[in-house]
Each structure stands twice: as C-alpha cells, then as structure tokens.
C-alpha cells in the first residue's frame, strides 16, 4: 500500500492554519463553490451516499442515508445541528479539527446544509473547548465578512447562518436527541425514538445532527470524488448484508500509557497494534501493554492479545467490544490494576448518567459503588456476578433504556469481567480472603454537588 497522505489534517501544522487566507491558499472553499454552482442538493446527498461515508461520532451511521431521511415536500425550515460535544474519554480529534482548521469544518457544514436544505446551523460546542470556541467564532465572522455566510452565500442565492451554542459540561449532550433538547433550553434528556430527528428534531422541525469530523470529510469527497474516498478503508463484508463497509480517512487518537500520545490520521482499518507501535511509539517506559480501549471508554477493552484487531467499524465488534466508537485508543500498561480501571470507568458513567431511565441511573451508580467497595478491599466474589447482571441488563440492547449511554457503561464492565475476571477474583481473594460480607451497607448516596460536571 502506498504511503497514506493525510487529508483532514493536511493543514494543521501550517502557521495560522485557522485563518481564512491560509485555508483558501490550500484550495479551501472550492468544494462549496463547485456544489453551489454545479450540483443539486439531491446530487450532493447521492454523492455522499455513494462514498459510503459513515458518521465519525460513534455510531457509524451512513451519513448520506441520514440526509436522505429528511422528508421531501416539507415546508421547512430544516435545521442542521453540529455535534461538537466531544466528551467521550480519550477523544480529542474534533478539538484538533476545530482549533487548527475551523474553516474546513465550516465548509463541510455549508455543503451539509446545502444538501439537507438547512438554512440555519447550530454548532453545539462543549464548554471545555474555549480555544475551539474562539477560533470557530473568528472563522465564522471571517466568512460573514467575505459573504460566504448569510443571505446569498457566494452570490449563489443560497442562504445560511451558523450559530455557536455552548454546552454546559454534560456528556449526555453528545447523544443527538439529548443535544437537541439541550439546544432547546431544556435538560438534556434523550428523546424516545421514533420520531427520529430527521422527521421531528430541533424545534419540532426536520433536523440532521452530524459530527464535526464527518462534515470535515465532505468537502474532500466533493473535491476528490467517491473513488478516491473508497480507495481507503475496509470494503463491506459480502457475507454480511448489514455491513456498509468502512471507507475513508479517520482521525485516531492515542493516549494513556503511550510514548507519543496524539491524533493520527490514517485510512480506516489500521490495527490497534500498528497504531500503538508504529505511530504511538510503543507502550511508555518500555513496558508491556495489558489492554487498550479501542474507541473511547464506552467501547470496552481489547486485551493485549487482541491488538491485531482492525480498527474499522466492524473490527472491534468481532473482538467483543461495542464498536469502533470515536476511534480513540487508550493504552493501559502492565502495571494497571483492572479494578482501578473499571472503577474509573464506572465512576465516569455514574457521574454522567442523565438520570432519565432508572436502569441506567441506578445501574451506573451502584456499579460504581460496588467497584469502590471492591477497591477498598471489602469485595466479595459474588459482587462480580452482580456486576455482570448490571452489565447485562442496562442499555438499549437489553431494551431497558432510551439512549446508548448505559450500553457504553455496561461494555467496559462486561469486557473487563470476561477478559480479566481472574484478576478481579485474585484481588478480592487477596484483599478479603474470608469473603466477609461487609456488615455496613454500601455508603449512602453521595450528596450531589462535588465538582463541575
């Protein structure tokens, strides 16, 4: 395979890469001109559909297909929401795109809005990205000044307004209907679907919610064509009619116990081991790897023996993980206790569960407390079965919750218990050899109010 040439991150190392002149000097805003001049919205949707571009936010839903769900003959208005509430632990690829190349993102938004006939786009940005906020706002202002945004963009009769909307530090706002609720000024409780946002989304109007990286791919598909995009990645499995394939470039984040943490652009389908050893410089301090999170903490765990798994949309699933997620790899070295890891994971989800569905609200907080008890040396072997039961019974898959947060909370539990059960048993036997039942109940619910998020 020829050496891969980065596309999405081609500009990020240039000086002042976030400014309009630099972006335009490297061919920026040519794709939107081509689209406005030569293509109908339906043609753009068909192009993106043909490219096989799948959402980069986690679920991997085909982008063109999502756009095509919008009702025809609807009087409008249509809305576009851009999901920049990147909060999945380990993930920072969108931050880099927004900080270093905001115009690329904006061009993607423009094309997406033209294709979906949206005239207003809300960019929902998490609060913790102040630099991204400033740079995007500056980029949007530059576009308004140039006539690229507003009424009659590029003088082609297309009008579009992009507004920034800042979140308030809640993980659940990354769920698309949670994001819409939050945008509308309510608590970010995900909605029961159907109706899907394409039919009834923001302000009860047809809405498309797309991730930053997904939209950043779109100008390149317009410029370079479907064949170029499909030349990268892993083709669809012919034996699985439900597999749409994994095409195109992807930003992989590597962090944790790694020599060179960072964001690396590669065609979809690179293996976890290649990512760690070739790009990340190997596990830090010359240690051995123990496990890795394949794509954000909610995707579960790959044991070191499974690192040859390809990180495309289908790959991690074959190794028992939830999916590719955000393709954010977090490496755990041999010194990490899985009890600590799982406690951290459960604590995160207990903190971020929105509280709408009982199985998730209770399941995440009780699993945190059980893990805390184990960590304190008061665990019992039957706690592991209890954790397993919680893991098996919360989420969309067992059908007990509205959104996928609980599945994401359950997967690390299930994977850790399946792949590292011996370690948990050892820890419990070592710290609580008599298997004493702790006479004290697990400590009462903490008073809410510690911390920001």
């Amino acid at each position: 395979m020829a050496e891969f040439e980065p596309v999405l991150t081609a500009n990020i190392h240039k000086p002042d890469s976030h400014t309009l002149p630099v972006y335009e000097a490297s061919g920026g805003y040519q794709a939107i001109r081509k689209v406005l001049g030569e293509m109908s919205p339906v043609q753009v949707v068909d192009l993106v559909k043909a490219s096989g571009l799948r959402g980069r936010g986690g679920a991997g839903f085909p982008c063109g297909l999502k756009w095509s769900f919008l009702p025809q003959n609807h009087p409008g208005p249509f809305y576009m929401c851009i999901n920049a509430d990147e909060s999945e632990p380990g993930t920072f690829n969108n931050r880099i795109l927004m900080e270093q190349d905001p115009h690329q993102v904006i061009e993607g938004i423009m094309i997406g809005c033209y294709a979906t006939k949206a005239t207003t786009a809300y960019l929902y940005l998490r609060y913790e990205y102040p630099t991204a906020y400033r740079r995007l706002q500056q980029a949007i202002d530059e576009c308004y000044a140039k006539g690229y945004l507003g009424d009659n963009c590029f003088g082609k009769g297309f009008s579009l307004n992009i507004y920034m909307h800042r979140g308030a530090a809640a993980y659940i706002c990354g769920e698309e209907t949670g994001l819409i609720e939050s945008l509308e000024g309510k608590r970010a409780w995900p909605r029961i679907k159907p109706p899907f946002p394409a039919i009834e989304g923001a302000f009860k109007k047809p809405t498309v919610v797309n991730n930053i990286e997904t939209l950043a791919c779109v100008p390149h598909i317009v410029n370079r064509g479907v064949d170029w995009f499909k030349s990268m990645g892993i083709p669809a499995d012919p034996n699985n009619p439900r597999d749409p394939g994994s095409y195109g470039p992807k930003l992989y984040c590597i962090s944790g116990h790694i020599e060179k943490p960072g964001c690396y652009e590669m065609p979809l389908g690179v293996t976890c081991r290649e990512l760690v050893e070739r790009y990340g410089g190997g596990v830090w301090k010359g240690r051995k790897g123990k496990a890795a999170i394949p794509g954000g903490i909610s995707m579960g765990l790959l044991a070191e023996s499974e690192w040859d798994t390809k990180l495309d949309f289908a790959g991690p699933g074959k190794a028992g993980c939830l999916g590719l997620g955000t393709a954010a790899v977090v490496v755990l070295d041999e010194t990490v206790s899985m009890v600590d890891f799982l406690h951290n994971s459960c604590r995160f989800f207990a903190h971020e569960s929105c509280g709408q569905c009982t199985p998730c609200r209770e399941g995440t907080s009780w699993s945190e407390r059980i893990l805390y008890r184990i960590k304190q040396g008061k665990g019992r072997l039957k706690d592991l079965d209890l954790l397993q039961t919680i893991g098996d019974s919360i989420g969309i898959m067992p059908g007990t919750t509205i959104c996928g947060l609980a599945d994401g909370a359950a997967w690390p539990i299930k994977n850790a218990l399946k792949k590292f059960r011996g370690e948990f048993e050892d820890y419990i036997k070592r710290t609580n050899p008599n298997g004493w039942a702790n006479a004290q109940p697990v400590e009462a619910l903490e008073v809410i109010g510690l911390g920001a998020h």
Partner: protein
Amino acid sequence: MTTVTAPTTPVLTPDMVAAIQALFPRYPTRQAITLPALHMVNAKLRHVPMAAIPEIAKLLELSPAQIYDTLTFYGFFKHEQGGYVRAWVCRSISCALRGAEEVLEKMCDKLHVHPGGTTEDGKITLEFGECLGLCDFAPAVLANEQVYKSVSLDQVDEICAMLKSQAEQQANGTAIPTL
C-alpha cells in the same frame, strides 16, 4: 425564620439584558436562549444567583421553574459564588492513567480545599472534571481558558502560584477579560 428582602436592584444589568435580547433572532423559540443566558450571567457573576432566575424567565417568557429545571441539570452552574479562577483537574481515564488523581490531591492539599470547593479567600475554585478532551496532554488542568499540559506533581506548586496570581489580577480588574 429569617426574612428575605427582595433585592432592590435587578441582577441582570442593562448590558446583559441587551446581550440576551440580541440572541432572540437566532432561535425560533426563546427557551433556546436559556443556556446562553445562564452562561452570560455565570461569566459575569461567577455563579447564577436565585434572584437572576425570575429575571431571565421574564425575558424569555418562561416560568422560573423552567429556567431552574435546566440550570440544575447542568452541574456547571452554581448558586454560590465561585472563585475568580475556576480550575478543573481532569480525572477521566487517560489523565487518571498518568497520575491525575495524585495531581488533584496535591492541588487540594496546596490550596486547602476539597474538590468542588473555593479557597478561603474566595479566589480559586478547584474542581475535578470529566474528560476535558486534552488526553494528548494528560494529565491536564483547565483554568479560566488556560490549559496546563502534562502536569507533573513537581509542577503543582508552580501552577497553584500561577492560579493565585491570575485570580489576583482578575480580582483587581487588571486581567484581560475572557469572552
């Protein structure tokens, strides 16, 4: 029972009201301005006082309960005034693997606060954060838009000193206002 006297002057200054009203054309409903309005108040006052809620509600043509509902969902907004500097120490997995818990502990020690608390002089609020999206710079601290990257335990003293001087500048009005 203590008597509560109604504040004589409104919490929202005319500038803030104007800034909130300027957002009306952006959204089809006024309720959508709830978060931006709360952010505006929070940025100015470092908290959202209860008295601000009915005022925002009136502007947005909502009931105060609707504003309160949204406000309390997001743990970001507080009723009690925080410090001039609000520092978040990330404790999620990538940072935790590289020693974030120890950094948080040492910072708490140094500043004499519990996570979520404000220093006695009211200058610095120290909180834990869940994934700040700075995993390539783990462990990371975000304080008033300033990012402290790959913080080691040895740097904690220095960072606390920087936070203090930042807070000092903010308190004296010599700092460049953010946002």
